[in-house]
């Protein structure tokens, strides 16, 4: 092993196989007493998935034992995630999904775009960001809700605008 070569961070690479194993075992538990038609395909695919995951985990163990890899998670999480605003973007995305049911598409999109862009831009150019966000949110409302009556989540703004426009 070359001591200068950084060790491969295998912890992050193991997340998907571990998720796959847990999900497959859960899936098997839901079909254990089901008719064969519900089982045949899932057992075939799931067994192969478990096998390839086991092979991958074995490969990782061998790599760690030989000193080429470590159980680090640097490929998945790092300080960069905070610095780039990724964690902030994740929080605003969850907020977008929660709020859109109550506030409707236009207002939630405006809030989400403004806050996310300000986080990613590290607070620079707030007026420009607010203008871009407003233009995008209103543009989305005009095209998808007003013009095409698409089934977007509706809230106070959409209801008010509908009343205003229908009453001339």
């Amino acid at each position, binding site marked *: 092993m070359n001591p200068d070569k950084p060790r491969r961070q295998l912890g*992050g*690479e193991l*997340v*998907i*196989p571990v*998720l*796959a194993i847990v*999900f497959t075992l*859960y*899936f098997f538990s*839901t*079909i254990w007493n*089901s*008719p*064969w*038609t*519900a089982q*045949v*395909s*899932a057992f075939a*695919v799931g067994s*192969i*998935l478990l096998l*390839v*995951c086991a*092979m*991958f985990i074995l*490969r990782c163990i061998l790599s760690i034992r030989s000193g080429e890899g470590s159980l680090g998670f640097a*490929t*998945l999480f790092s300080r*960069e995630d905070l610095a*780039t*605003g*990724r964690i902030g*973007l*994740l929080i*605003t*995305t*969850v907020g*977008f*999904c929660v709020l*859109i*049911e109550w506030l409707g*598409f236009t207002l939630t*999109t405006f809030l*989400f*775009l403004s806050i*996310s*862009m300000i986080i*990613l*831009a590290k607070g620079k150019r707030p007026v420009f*960001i607010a203008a871009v966000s407003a233009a*995008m949110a209103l543009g989305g409302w005009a*095209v998808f809700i007003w013009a*095409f*009556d*698409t*089934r*977007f*989540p509706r809230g106070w703004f959409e209801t008010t605008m509908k009343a205003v426009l229908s009453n001339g």
Partner: protein
Amino acid sequence: MGETSAILVEVFFETLSFWWVIIPTIFLGLIVGGIPGFSAANTIIILMPLTLAMTLQTGLVFMVTLYCSARMGAGIPAILVNIPGTAGAAATPLDGYPMAKQGKGQQALAISFVSSSIGGLLTTLVALATMPILARVGFYMHSVEMIVVMLFGISLIASIASQDMLKGLIAGFLGLMIGSIGTDVVYATPRGTFGFLELYDGVPLIPALVGLFAVSEAFVIIEKRVIVAKEGGAVKGSWTDTFDGVRIALSRWWHIIWTSIIGLIIGVIPGAGASIASFVAYQQSRSFSKTPELYGSGHPEGLIAPESANNGVTSGTLVPLLVLGIPGGATAAIMLVVMQFHGVSFGPSLFESQPKIGYGMFMAMAVAYLLMFFTILPLSRYMSHVTTVPTIYLAPMIISFTLVGGFVPREYMFDMYLALGFGLLGYIARRTGYHVAAILIGIILGPLLERYFLLALKKSDGDISTLFSSNLGNVLWVGLVLSLVLPIYFGRRRKQKVIPT
């Protein structure tokens, strides 16, 4: 024959006079095709009152143009920001996006537009000429044959997995497992649904697509200031790149022809579709390429294959609709409803009783592809600038508009959370070297493969040898094995030839 030719010429010029409908519809199609969740089918449903109010011919021209342009539009975000607008464009970013990252977005768009237009135009003409034969293809495709067609698509996982076989197989089989969520097709037993009623019909495709591609990509691109990689060079924005793209696509004319024919044949089969066609075409293109190692790194042929094939599907789906009255897909089914509203009855007699309607639909498609070529191609120069928009603005826009697109098809808030969940899965996969396309292939093709597999077993009382019981099926099995084995053989021969030199 002479009479038919006269009708075709007359219908062609008549359709051309509808340019005022076709051109705005092309742009509408580009928009709805480019945003996940807004398929042509959804848009035609939304605009159905308008379509029914139009004359039959105007309505047909509108629907057909929207169908074609939405198909082409789905490839634009797939190339520029790695987000396929529909599942039919899921194979497009495999080579399109690497080109965009190298600063060749304009070239990639031109290649995509040329191969889509020529593929669509060519298959329309082939469909027109061979309609009676093509219409019968659906009759010969039973569950056994469909299993092999699905396996043709699924074998793409093996190609994607070539860089790290274990990781590729884990991603592909995880996708197949996720695709098994929902009730089984025979007894409707719920499986792996985590208790969510919303998953009883299976994992909805659009939230999976939005999450795996759009949301995860948005979280990844914020690491860079713009999408174009530094080493890729700046986007020049001159016409040269567009002409280069046209030249590259035209120089591979044979590739466009045979991959679009794959799309046409798969399009004719009811229940198959553009996603299967594009995966199969990409896999076959890679299998028989002299440079398979270039696929996935921004190879023009890897972009031409799925784009030609998914546009070949559009004309294919019209064949069973017009000749047999069996819609080949969701959009064709809606066209059927609109045409029946206007009193048009389908079947072979359509071409005798109302030849202008029957041939008119194909002509509308041909004219739409012709006009698309000239109207969209110049736009590639301007569209490619999306890759230069700072990611701090682009990423939140991608997330908000695509997540809402995930909500639209079923109107369940659950689907937005599901898209977010798939986004996290896609992000983990991207950061740790698993291919999201392999997961998506599994999710799309897994349920279809299971359905046909169970149907075949039910029909044969559980006899597995039924998989080899049909002549056409056996021919397809041989084709599948050859398509997997021959590339390995040719690859070894090429290596042996290179070593002595």
